[in-house]
């Protein structure tokens, strides 16, 4: 028998301290609520970071170790799932934003109403969002200013109305960005500086990024890279009302006899189990861990998992596969590109974002140029791997390569889903997430077309050889895990309502990437944070009125 005493009840307990969870913590604590944050990962600080390629990319200092936290994948129900590192995402304080690329474009107005535009698409579960761009716009602006971003407001001619520009100027141009922009211009296309989660001028006590080149997949030892670790979490801590407990793994959301959530059960680092009670529970574990936790939280009242009366928990999963064309440039003809300088990417275009049915598919994605990695992991298909041929290729091409990528705007499909693997467990003995996924034919068509188009841009840029890298299946290589607790007005077809409150449990919310009704063709974190802010405001304004004092 344990004699220990559980921690005191609070207003809100938030599972996860990533993009969504930290935003909610900031907004709620700044409004005076007492919040406990439970984050399964460690609380690494900027001083743990440096430009060490082997440590961060190959030895996965911040990526989860697949030996401890495996996942399984199968293309469809008929096949046996196999262990893969599907959609790895850092499980640390700051979540996915700690070592990310920090691309923060906004959704377009049409992204909110794809069903109205395209009608029924066979084999897909396309829907409109229950909210509009105009409802989200004020929150986009707040996040851009509080989180710290850079860009050129208005430069994206496909963007909707915006109430304010970016707080700091666009990030500096790299040779790769210049090459991309001039080639696009030659072809009659527009480009603009990538909106970045970075500050490029002194801002809110932060100094600009040093441009040391260690950006994508590297946390920043300085204060230039915006992450919730460096912005929203300190903001919340400064209120004195945010008790963030790292290395605490939530295994179950608890419900009372009235069907309301009472709190969560979690294990601390030493394996001791605790119960944290609260007036409301906000789940922000990410698009794979959140449905997993809901499905693990089975009870007599909720035998199929929590908030799952629709059977929709985990379904309609989309993953934004990253595909690209590689351009190899001849060093006798072209100046070096120095891909490792700057911050991985530079510039982007939305010219292929909106649907043009003459392409043979619907939807589209933003495209952006980037490097092929630092020396250890730099590669291209067909690269000789050993012997003098390998050394020659490294020597001649390391500074003469770039790629132009897409983020697949994949269609939601009901059978594409996350559920619990029946046999595989993690190092804590809990069932792991199983991903069942086969792309819609439109996904393949869109991906092929855009990768080929990106190849044309590389040719226009003077590449002597262009190599398309197409997907065979979805691997989750962007860590964009979306749609698994779909937001909608109808409780029969969605899991959370327009305020991201579950239809089934009135004091249970999901504020992470899981709510996306459709995938979009952009990076999701700005939208996750803006939406979390919007929904946290609703808790403050409306839902918390009847709460007992925490």
């Amino acid at each position, binding site marked *: 028998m344990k004699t220990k005493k559980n921690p005191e009840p609070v207003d809100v307990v938030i599972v996860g301290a990533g993009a969504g969870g930290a935003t909610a913590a900031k907004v709620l604590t700044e409004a005076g609520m007492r919040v406990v944050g439970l984050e399964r990962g460690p609380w690494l600080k900027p001083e743990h970071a*440096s430009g060490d390629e082997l440590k961060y990319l190959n030895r996965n200092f911040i990526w989860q170790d697949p030996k401890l936290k495996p996942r399984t994948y199968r293309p469809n129900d008929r096949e046996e799932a196999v262990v893969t590192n599907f959609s790895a995402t850092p499980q640390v304080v700051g979540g996915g934003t700690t070592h990310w690329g920090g691309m923060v474009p906004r959704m377009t107005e049409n992204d909110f109403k794809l069903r109205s535009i395209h009608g029924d698409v066979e084999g897909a579960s396309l829907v409109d969002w229950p909210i509009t761009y105009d409802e989200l716009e004020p929150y986009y602006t707040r996040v851009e200013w509080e989180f710290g971003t850079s860009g050129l407001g208005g430069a994206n001619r496909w963007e909707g109305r915006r109430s304010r520009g970016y707080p700091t100027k666009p990030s500096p141009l790299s040779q790769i960005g210049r090459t991309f922009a001039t080639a696009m211009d030659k072809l009659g296309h527009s480009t603009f500086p990538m909106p970045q989660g970075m500050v490029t001028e002194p801002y809110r006590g932060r100094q600009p990024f040093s441009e040391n080149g260690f950006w994508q997949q590297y946390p920043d030892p300085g204060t230039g890279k915006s992450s919730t670790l460096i912005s929203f979490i300190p903001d919340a801590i400064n209120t004195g009302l945010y008790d963030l407990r790292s290395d605490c793994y939530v295994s179950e959301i608890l419900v009372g006899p009235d069907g309301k959530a009472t709190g969560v059960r979690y294990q601390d680092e030493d394996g001791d189990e605790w119960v944290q009670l609260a007036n409301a529970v906000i789940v922000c574990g990410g698009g794979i861990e959140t449905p997993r936790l809901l499905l693990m939280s089975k009870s007599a009242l909720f035998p199929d998992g929590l908030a799952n009366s629709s059977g929709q928990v985990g379904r309609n999963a989309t993953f934004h596969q990253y595909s690209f064309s590689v351009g190899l440039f001849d060093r006798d003809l072209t100046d070096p590109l120095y891909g490792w300088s700057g911050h991985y990417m530079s510039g982007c275009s939305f010219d292929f974002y909106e649907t043009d049915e003459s392409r043979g598919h619907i939807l589209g994605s933003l495209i952006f140029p980037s490097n092929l990695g630092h020396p250890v992991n730099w590669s291209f298909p067909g690269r000789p791997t050993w012997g003098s041929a390998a050394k020659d290729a490294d020597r001649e091409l390391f500074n003469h390569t770039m790629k132009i990528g897409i983020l697949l705007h994949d269609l939601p499909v009901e059978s594409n889903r996350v559920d619990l693997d029946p046999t595989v467990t993690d190092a804590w003995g809990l069932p792991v997430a199983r991903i069942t996924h086969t792309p819609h034919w439109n996904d393949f068509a869109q991906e092929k077309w855009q990768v080929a188009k990106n190849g044309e841009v590389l040719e226009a840029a003077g590449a002597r050889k262009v190599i398309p890298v197409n997907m065979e299946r979805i691997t989750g290589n962007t860590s964009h895990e979306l749609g698994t607790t779909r937001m909608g007005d109808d409780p029969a077809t969605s899991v959370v309502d327009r305020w991201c409150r579950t239809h089934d449990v009135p004091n249970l919310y999901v504020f992470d990437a899981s709510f996306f009704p459709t995938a979009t063709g952009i990076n999701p974190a700005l939208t996750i944070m803006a939406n979390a802010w919007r929904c946290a405001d609703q808790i403050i304004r409306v839902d918390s009125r009847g709460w007992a004092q925490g």
Partner: protein
Amino acid sequence: MGQAEWVTDPISTRDVDGPIYFSDEDWRTIEAAAARIIPTDNHPGATEAHVVRFIDRMLAGTQFVFAAADGEGFLRMQGREERAWAERIEQRRDLYRSGLIQLCDVSVGRFGAHFVALSCDQQDAVLEELSGEPKPTKFSFDAPEDDGLGGAPAGNQPVNEDFLSFFPLLVLNSRQGFYSDPVYGGNENRIGWAVIGFDGPPTLASTMDGSYTTKKYMIVDAEWPYERHPEVLRYRRP
């Protein structure tokens, strides 16, 4: 103790010169094999970069897995993470153990001598047999894409080496030893970086204090040609 609390041991991969894990004989064999994977020509290769020392330290145990952020010492791993790495290192040791036996068997079987005693061409033939594929031929812009074996760059996914067999693991570890930060025991004096023209950081600490920057390779003063977008000026910060 969570990952954020791991302490730093004041140790270096260069505290001793020779092997910590390998026998002298295995050290020499791996050194010779790495020298064929990244040969020395008019530029230094695996031998000068001390790739074998990198591999030896990788197999030595969990003490050299993660350098401290500033490169002064190594993190002392704890708990589940350490156990997972100990298991991983044990798997790699097994692969190297059986790989070394295979190298020896093929060398003796085909050329009647140990690997280290063979000529460069003979060594290449042994490695080619181990790899199960023809030795890669020189890259050309005009050749079809499938002539080498390297794959796409790692996008933004973690690299998983756990499923590699001996030869591809040896190739990858040689590359890591040639190109990773010198704190891990290879890339001596950053010669690997010099070979390919990567003007990398002088120390890990220099990536933390802002003193190392790549700005001189960028076009920092470039202004976007925003005059083509009439909206832009309206939204610009005053």
